[in-house]
């Protein structure tokens, strides 16, 4: 895209992009640390994740203010308008991802015993997958790469499938030993958080598509989280 006649307008949009890139980088780090903290039961790391969430909240506010100011000053049209609206939406998704990472980290305090090996490896895999999804979608946004974004959008199915299997596994542990219900519930929420993070990455992918093409993705959204229909006996 060529430059605006008014250079300051280009700067306004460039500022939004760089603030979003900064926000994305912090969210990735927060997510990686939250997963590590939960799996290794590292409460110090968990506390640092909880503290750092304020940075993301602050950045989201700054992006929103900058976006509103730019709309008021420049009356953006067409691609510029989409650029700004998408920045607001993406920053809000990243902020939610930060909240979910923080919530996952918080649960570290409630886990007193090492996780069973199967479960730890399942959660590790789910964590890696969520991190890859986030990393890829942030790259797709920075590079304006619709195909890369759509790949993330489609891969959300796998994250949902993994969540379903962890859900089943946790149900089994809870049935076997009711004393573990407390801890398992926390782990279940942790896994659910990762699954929700996946949903936010698909939101971002949808916004990349809208940014580039000016219209919504027409396929139906991949949605394979079937746990809402599961009963304990299904496990």
């Amino acid at each position: 895209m060529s430059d605006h006649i008014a250079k300051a307008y280009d700067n306004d949009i460039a500022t939004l992009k760089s603030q979003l890139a900064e926000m994305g980088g912090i969210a990735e780090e927060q997510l990686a640390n939250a997963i590590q903290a939960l799996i290794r039961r590292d409460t110090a790391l968990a506390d640092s994740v909880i503290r750092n969430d304020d940075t993301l909240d602050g950045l989201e506010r700054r992006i929103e203010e900058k976006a509103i100011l730019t709309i008021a000053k420049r009356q953006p049209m067409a691609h510029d308008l989409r650029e700004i609206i998408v920045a607001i939406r993406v920053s809000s998704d990243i902020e939610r991802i930060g909240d979910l990472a923080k919530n996952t980290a918080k649960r570290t305090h409630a886990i007193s015993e090492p996780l069973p090996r199967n479960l730890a490896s399942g959660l590790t895999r789910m964590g890696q997958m969520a991190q890859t999804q986030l990393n890829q979608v942030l790259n797709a946004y920075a590079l304006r790469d619709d195909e890369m974004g759509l790949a993330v959008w489609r891969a959300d199915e796998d994250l949902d499938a993994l969540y379903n299997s962890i859900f089943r596994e946790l149900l089994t542990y809870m049935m076997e030993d009711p004393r573990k219900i407390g801890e398992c519930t926390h782990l279940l929420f942790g896994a659910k958080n990762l699954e929700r993070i996946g949903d936010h990455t698909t939101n971002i992918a949808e916004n990349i598509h809208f940014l580039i093409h000016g219209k919504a993705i027409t396929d139906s959204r991949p949605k394979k989280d079937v746990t809402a229909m599961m009963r304990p006996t299904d496990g």
Partner: protein
Amino acid sequence: MDIQLSAIITPPSPRIMAERQPRIAARDVNIYYGDKRAINSLSIDIPDKAVSAFIGPSGCGKSTFLRAVNRMNDTIPICHMTGEVRLDGKNIYDKDVDVVELRSHVGMVFQKPNPFPKSIHENVAYGPRIHGMAKDKAALDEIVEKSLKKAGLFEEVKDRLSHSGTSLSGGQQQRLCIARAIAVNPEVILMDEPCSALDPIATARIEELIDELRQNYCIIIVTHSMQQAARVSQLTAFFHLGTLVEYGDTDEMFTSPKDKRTQDYITGRFG
């Protein structure tokens, strides 16, 4: 002849045109100032009861084409044109067309309000009188009142209809000019940057008025304000270097235009 023309030149057509007959249909219009071609084989269908906005950089031909719709270009000696402009199917450039009569069907409002240096009443009454539209003074007064009401000016001037039209504020003068255009019962109203000399409040009033008038008229507005085009029109045509680049539903033109030149222009990137 008609069938052949439309077979050769398919005008770009916005969605709204699919369900309506064009009130104005231009086919293969070329307009020259001396040797210089200002409009380049332009074809367009413009619907009734809608506002169509013409946008584009200075010198793109939008005002030239607008003036071709009521043969205002006839008054410029070096200007000549080829092609057809049809109003309800009738070519307005046919030999048997009376230009004065035509301009009562196609009214025009200019950039600078230009009331006659006469009373407010006379400004509005002049047209209907020369066209013999009122049989007596009472009928003429009724037309004046109705036109001023439609133009949203009556309440402000009803106690001083005998005052000079030029004593009004800029925004009021422009509404007076709109009342004057409406008084002769036109089907089409052409507006050439009607708000560019007005303050934001007067502009908002005119825009509100345009929105009301579109219930009954075919309105074409030339404007340099993209925001104004986006606010008041249902259709937008983008002109560049004498060519109609893109013509579409306003909502789409300002959110996802198809042509890169349109995109560059409306986002402020034109070099």
